[in-house]
C-alpha cells in the first residue's frame, strides 16, 4: 500500500491512468506485474483492466442501476456465473458495510456511501492491484479516515493499493509508504514505517 502525493498537475492522475491503460505512455515504460504496458495490444486492454481495480473521486457509478448491479459490473463483463456474482457482490458490499443498500440506487446514498460502492466495485473481482484517484476528495475528514481504514483492511488481505491524494494530514496518519511527484518526476520516496508495498 502506497500513497501518491504532489501538487495538482504533478502527474498523480496521469500515473494512475497509465496503470489502468486509460492513457498510453508517449515516452518511457510502464511495468505492471512484470508486463510492459506499451506492448499490450488494444484487444488485450480489457483483460489488463480486469486486473486493476479503479476508484475515482467522482465514483463513476451508473445512476440508473442499483448498488448491486453497479458492483456486479466487473463480474458480469468477465462472464462470472449468476451464483458467483451474487456471492461475491454481497461479500464486497459486506466489506464496505453496505449490504443493506444493495437494492438502493446510488443517487439515494450519501457521498461517503457512494464512494464505498465505488470501492466495492473495484475490489469485487479481487484484482491484485487497486488504484484510487483522490478517493476522499469530496469527503469530510471523518469519512475520509473511514475510507482509508477500509483500504488498510484490503491491504492486510493482500491487495496492492496505490492511492493518489493531496490530503497530507490523512497520509501522515496512515504510516505507509509515500511517493511524492512533482512535474511528472518522482521527487520523494519515504518508506515511513511498516510499508508493505
Amino acid at each position, binding site marked *: 500500500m502506497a500513497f501518491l502525493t504532489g501538487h495538482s498537475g504533478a502527474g498523480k492522475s496521469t500515473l494512475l*491512468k497509465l496503470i*489502468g491503460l*486509460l492513457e498510453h505512455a508517449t515516452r518511457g515504460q510502464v511495468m505492471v506485474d512484470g508486463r510492459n504496458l506499451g506492448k499490450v495490444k488494444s*484487444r488485450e486492454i*480489457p*483483460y*489488463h*483492466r*480486469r486486473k486493476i481495480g*479503479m476508484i475515482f473521486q467522482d465514483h*463513476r*457509478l*451508473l445512476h440508473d442501476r442499483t448498488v448491486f448491479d453497479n458492483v456486479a*459490473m*466487473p463480474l458480469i*463483463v*468477465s*462472464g462470472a*456465473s*449468476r451464483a*458467483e456474482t451474487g456471492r461475491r457482490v454481497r461479500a464486497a458490499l459486506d466489506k464496505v458495510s453496505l449490504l443493506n443498500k444493495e437494492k438502493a440506487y446510488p443517487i439515494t446514498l450519501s457521498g461517503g456511501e457512494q464512494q464505498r460502492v465505488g470501492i466495492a*466495485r473495484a475490489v469485487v*473481482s479481487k484484482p491484485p492491484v487497486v488504484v484510487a484517484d483522490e478517493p476522499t476528495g469530496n469527503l469530510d475528514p471523518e469519512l475520509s479516515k473511514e475510507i482509508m481504514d477500509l483500504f488498510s483492511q484490503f491491504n492486510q488481505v493482500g491487495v496492492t493499493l496505490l492511492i493518489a491524494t493531496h490530503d497530507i494530514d490523512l497520509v501522515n496518519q496512515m504510516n505507509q509508504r509515500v511517493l511524492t511527484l512533482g512535474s511528472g518526476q518522482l521527487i520523494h520516496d519515504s518508506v515511513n514505517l511498516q510499508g508493505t508495498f
Partner: protein
Amino acid sequence: MKADAQKPARKSSPPSRTHIWLLRHLQVALASLGRLTRSPIGTLMTATVLGIAVSLPAGMWVMLDNVKQISGNWDGGASLSMFLKAEANEQQIDGLIDKLKLMPEIQQINYLTRDDALVEFQQFSGLGQALEILQENPLPAVLIITPTQQHSTPSQADLLLKKLKQEPLADMTQLDMEWVERFHAITEIAIRAVMVLASVLSLAVLLIIGNTIRLEIQNRHDEIEITKLVGATNSFIRRPFLYTGFWYGLLGGLIAWFLVTLSLWLLSGPIEKLTGLYQSQFRLDVLDLPTTMVVLLGSAFLGLAGARIAVGRHLRAIEPE
C-alpha cells in the same frame, strides 16, 4: 494429492463456459428487448418506419407474384380472337365456324354473338348505361379460337393467325399471345423495379437503424465508458446494441408483414369482384411462408447489419478518461 483433490472441485463449480456464454447472450437479448419495451412509443415509431420501408418491396413482390400467377395460366392457352364484320349474318357465321372446326390446327371455338357481347359488356364493364344511349349494338361478334397444343407455340400460332386473317368475314384477328408476351416483358421490368426499390429501401433501413443505434450509444455514453473501465471487451459492449438492432429489424419485419397482409386483405374484396368479371378462378395469394421468412429474417439481418456499422463507427470514439 492436494492438487488432485482441488481439480475436480474447480471443474464442477463453474458451469461450462459455453453454457455461461449462451446464457449471457440470452440475457443480453432479453435485456435489449426489455429496454425497447420500456419506451414503447418511440420503439414502435422507429419500427413502423422500418416496417413501411420493408413493406413496400414486400407488398409489391406479392402483387407481382399474383400477377405472374395470372399470366402463368395464360401461357399454355394461346388463343386468337376473330372479330367478325358487322354485316356478317348468322348463317355466314355458322358456316365459318363449321369450316374452321375442320381445320386441324384448331381445337376449340367459342362463339360470342353480338348480343352475348353486349350483355357481358353491360353487366361487367359499368358502361352499360352509356351503351343504352346508342341506337345500335356497337359490339362485333367474336370467335375465340383455341389452337391445339402443338399449334400453340408462338411461330405456329403466328402461321395460324396469318391463315385466319385471310377469312373474308374477319374484320380483325389477333393473337392474344402477343399480349401475353408483352405482359411478360412488363412483369420482368416490374420485377427489376421491385429489386431496385428493395435495394434502395434496404439501404434506408440500414441508415435508420444505424442512426437509432448511434443515438442509443450517445444516450448510454456513461455506461459504455464505465463498462470499458471495468474491463469489458469490445464484443461485450457491442452485444446489446447488436441485439437492439436485431429486435428493431425483426419488429420492423413483423410490422411490414402486418401491413402487407392488411393491404392484401383490403384489396382482396375488389380483386375478387374484378376476377369475377373475367370468370377467373384467380385467388389473391397472401404472404406465403417462404416470403414471410424472407421478410422477417431479411429485416432482422438488416437491423443487425445497421447496428454493427453504427457500433463499429461510434464505440471506438468512447474511451474512459
